[in-house]
């Protein structure tokens, strides 16, 4: 698989070209879908085939974007939401992993808590929002805690499952070295669960966004979730739609970042 020579055969060049052409085609199709989508939206809205009052219109959204930018408010809202999301995300991952470690350490506890975790997982955390608000007040903390609640259980369950799937023989090997339980955790269980943890992270990105948006619906005075709610109240669908689109982009970027962690931490994989 290593490069055998710098000069490739003709056949290989044809192959490389066809691969590149295919990639281009995929990329082109992706871009086309985007363009067609927005163009169609714009045109249909223009000719009132779809009602711009209901679904807004790209040109209106851009106008609104410029206005928000000129106000200097655009980045404030984006920043606030991203900040809350990142905090919620990091906390969710760290606390979730710590609890998973505790459950791994103390098997009895994990058995006892299992049905409770299942129930908590299926529970619509959003219903608990108001309770959170009066426990921790109405600041950013409440938003972050709501985001935490939504991502935490999933993290615990998936990381704990990952821990339990660690190769028994690797643990046995460490035992023959006389390793303590803590060393087993440090040297085998944690590092070999890195792939699991990263895939939990990927899920968490999505959940953290959901959590923060829900939280902002409940208590925020700024942020994209706030804009969505406020835009609804003052009948500004442009604001609502623009916020949703910015949200998608931000969520995608964050996901891409986490996915890039995968390459970094799992370098030994290829």
């Amino acid at each position: 698989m290593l490069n055998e020579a710098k000069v490739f055969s003709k056949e290989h060049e044809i192959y490389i070209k066809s691969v590149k052409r295919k990639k281009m085609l995929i990329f082109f199709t992706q871009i086309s879908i985007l363009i067609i989508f927005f163009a169609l939206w714009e045109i249909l809205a223009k000719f009132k085939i779809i009602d711009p009052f209901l679904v807004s219109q790209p040109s209106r959204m851009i106008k609104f974007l410029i206005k928000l930018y000129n106000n200097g408010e655009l980045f404030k809202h984006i920043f606030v939401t991203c900040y809350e999301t990142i905090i919620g995300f990091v906390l969710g991952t760290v606390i979730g992993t710590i609890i998973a470690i505790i459950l791994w350490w103390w098997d009895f506890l994990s058995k006892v808590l299992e049905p409770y975790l299942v129930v908590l997982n299926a529970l619509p955390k959003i219903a608990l929002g108001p309770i959170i608000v009066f426990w921790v007040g109405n600041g950013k903390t409440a938003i972050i805690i709501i985001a935490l609640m939504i991502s935490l259980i999933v993290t615990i369950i998936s990381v704990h499952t990952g821990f339990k799937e660690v190769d028994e023989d690797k643990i046995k090997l460490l035992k023959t070295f006389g390793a303590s339980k803590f060393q087993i955790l440090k040297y085998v269980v944690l590092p070999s669960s890195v792939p699991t943890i990263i895939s939990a992270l990927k899920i968490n990105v999505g959940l953290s966004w959901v959590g923060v948006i829900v939280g902002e619906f409940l208590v925020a005075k700024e942020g994209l979730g706030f804009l969505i709610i406020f835009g609804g109240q003052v009948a500004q669908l442009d604001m609502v739609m623009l916020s949703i689109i910015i949200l998608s982009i931000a969520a995608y970027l964050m996901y891409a970042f986490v996915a890039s962690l995968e390459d970094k931490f799992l370098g030994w994989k290829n």
Partner: protein
Amino acid sequence: SQKKEEKLTKVRLNEVVRSIFYAPMYVAINKGFFNEEGLEIELSTGQGADKTMQQVLSNNADIGFCGPEQVIYLYNQGKDDYAVLFAQLTKRDGSFLVGRQKEDFRWENLKGKTIIGGRPGGVPQMTLEYIIRNHGLLPNKDVNLITNIAFTATAQAFKSGLGDYVALFEPTASMLEKEGGGYIVASIGKASGEIPYTCFFATKSYIEKNPDIIQKFTNAIYKGQLWVEKHSAKEIAEAVISFFPGSDIKLLTTVIERYKNQDTWSKDPILKEEALSRLMDIIQSYNRELLPNRPPYEKIVTTEFAQNAVNKIK
């Protein structure tokens, strides 16, 4: 009666939220006033005025029921087939100011105090700020306003120690009082004066196409209003309780009594220009940008149906 039911025309009505504040409408449904008019109401809840408006515009509802501000905004956005208000149900704000102790309340006392209000951009919050301004205080300067808490969480936030006052709708305000969490010290509705707080509307085209339905609908609402006026709070509570699963009849009665006393419900469905104009004042004083132009009354309101109803029904 089998035959009669077959002839009923179905009307899809979307209310903004489920609230005892709208008792006359529930009375009209439960007492069969709509059926008498040959209508059958399919009621759904929008959970937000914007959503009610969307329901109507997207043709998922025939008639919307929420604050007129949505109709005003829509007109200003230049939609051809805009919405038109044709009947009014409540003529005041339905919320109350709840404080921590019984007091001889004066709005001027609020200086330096903190109030939990509604979400920014919503009419309840605008009205509150309008009243504060009318009493010579500047919102967020003389009076602290907490506006970032969702409607469903404000009572709890107050009870857990936040703020000096909270603006609450019923039955939450009475509940809180009953639980010893606070005392109703003032009616925001009384202080604001008459405004068209919650009204029925439909798109212009729908009204043009279905004047008879609108007329029948308005008739039924008017009958409901008359019924409410003539009956005691307890009777009203009994008539509407089926709309409020798990509610306590006593509490409902208290609340209805309170709304009755302060003249919350319109006696008729006629929406007056003066009242609408006050609402627009309130919005503009809150934030001029929200309402750069004031839509003409004749365009967005029709009183034709309400007049007819008042004339016809005794």
